[in-house]
């Protein structure tokens, strides 16, 4: 596969529509499976959409292409967003999503290893995705490949020491093809992030660790697509995008309400959510 240099400006309108569809599907999945982590998945749907519908150089028909860009959902608890995106992109049929969290299926609450096309790494234990991603990036460097590695981290995940081990390592190795996106929704499982372990000032922390760190609105999908597409950005450093987000984004009664870290919606709530997302009139 040849690396396509995309200079096209992201079509923000089309991406927004796609992100809404992704959210709608994730909400259906959470309802059907009565599965947790819905708000965490909604929080990062714009990042995931920007990645799969604009940034990543991947071919769903050839998911093991050695030259593909890698997208690692290091915040594995948002698996529903990844599963739905991969299905929409054609890695596997859409009806596979109906097996999410069902007995005997392949779509567990956290992404599996060596089981589902398009899933680059089994995540769910936090703080693993970035070290693995650095290994993949170094492998590319050793073999003379140009692919990029994107790792999507939660803000709570920044509690893990291994994240900062990897941050220092990537900077020392000048892994400019590595990009971290932090889904900074200000909540972790049971409390406000900054009242749990002090992350702020998060951009400054990543910058101090040797990264080219920027802050952005994590729901400005056009901007996200642009920043991610620009990796490597010429700074010679790995890139950290601190994406300010809202947990439960897209559904008024879920936004910034941390009960939806664990709650699953009723059928009625799914309908309301779909209306709010503009998926039904």
């Amino acid at each position, binding site marked *: 596969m040849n690396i396509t240099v995309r200079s096209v400006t992201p079509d923000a309108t089309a991406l927004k529509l796609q992100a809404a569809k992704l959210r709608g599907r994730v909400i259906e999945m959470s309802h059907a499976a009565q599965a947790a982590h819905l708000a965490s998945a909604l929080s990062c749907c714009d990042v995931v959409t920007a990645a799969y519908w604009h940034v990543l150089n991947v071919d769903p028909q050839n998911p093991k292409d*050695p030259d593909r860009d890698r997208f690692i959902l290091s915040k594995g608890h948002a698996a529903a967003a990844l599963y739905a995106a991969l299905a929409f992109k054609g890695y596997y049929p859409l009806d596979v999503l109906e097996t999410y969290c069902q007995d005997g299926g392949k779509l567990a609450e956290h992404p599996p*290893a*060596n089981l589902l096309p398009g899933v*680059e*790494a*089994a995540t769910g*234990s936090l*703080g*693993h995705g*970035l*070290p*693995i*991603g*650095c*290994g*993949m*990036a*170094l*492998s*590319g*460097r*050793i*073999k003379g490949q140009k692919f990029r590695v994107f790792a999507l981290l939660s803000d709570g995940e920044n509690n893990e*020491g*291994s994240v900062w*081990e*990897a941050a*220092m*390592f990537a900077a*020392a*190795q000048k892994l400019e093809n590595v990009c971290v996106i932090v889904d900074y929704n200000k909540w972790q499982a049971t409390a406000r992030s900054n009242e749990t372990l002090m992350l702020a000032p998060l951009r400054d922390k990543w910058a101090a660790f040797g990264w080219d760190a920027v802050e952005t609105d994590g729901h400005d999908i056009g901007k996200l697509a642009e920043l991610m597409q620009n990796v490597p950005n010429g700074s010679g450093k790995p890139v950290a995008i601190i994406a300010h987000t809202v947990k439960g984004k897209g559904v008024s009664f879920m936004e910034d309400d941390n009960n939806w870290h664990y709650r699953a919606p009723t059928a009625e709530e799914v309908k309301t959510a779909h209306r709010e997302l503009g998926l039904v009139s």
Partner: protein
Amino acid sequence: MRNAFADELTKLGNEDSRVVMLSGDIGNRLFDKFRGAHPSRFFNCGVAEQNMMGVASGMAMSGLRPVVYTITPFVTTRCLEQIRTDACYHEAPVMIVAVGAGLAYAGLGPTHHACEDISLLRSLPNMIVVAPGDAWEVRGAMRAALKQDKPVYIRMGKKGEPVVHKGVPADFALGKALKVEDGNDVCLLSTGNMLPEAIEAAHRLKEKNISARVMSFHTVKPLDTACLEEAFSRFKLVATIEEHSLIGGLGSAVSEWVIDRAVKPSLFLRFGTPDAFFKMSGEQEFAREQLGLTGHQMAEKIEHTLA
């Protein structure tokens, strides 16, 4: 063992461009040759073992054959979850090489002892656990590990141990114990750097007219069940010997096999370290003596058991 490891690594690096070396900021000058020949494939990952194991797994998932090396507790227990989830769960062919296993670094104190690693790593799915008996077995284990498509743990002593073999044994294979000395009365199953003590025990027993077979039982997982079948059917006494806790090591593995097979047990002794930290200062020989793990002490216990 350590120098054999570094030398063999250089050879493997020359032969196979997939071989990548990751060190946890130890081995000053040990890897100069590898590094000189393959600067792009050597990484000092610093004192950050969780990241090192994750990086190695990511490399292995991308077709490389990383070798991860540091002192035993730091390359096993410190990053156990990365070994489990990143390497084992993904079946990523990471070669984990530990130096100073057991009480090899007794003098450094319990922070640097490693008598739990076999137990912990043996329980991880997809993991192969090897404790070579001498420097030649280290070389054999490394070559065999490179042919595996899953993670392999190689548990080494330090440097300057007695060399038992005259070269890499021709029949060296993972999961197949090596006969080092033959005998008829007792069968000593030794794993790792205890091999010279096992041989010493056999020599002491010979003086008492007890004939001992000594097996270098280098692979603790998978178990050489053919060897065990023979040991428990032919010998009056079988003993496992390891510089590792009696909880979960070779002795435990063999006990599990005995129970599962419901074989009529021969007399069975397990030599290993107790469920305690060894807090006294002193070097490996002293520690072994204190714990009853020297050749002559084990011989006495075997003789007493047979009497």
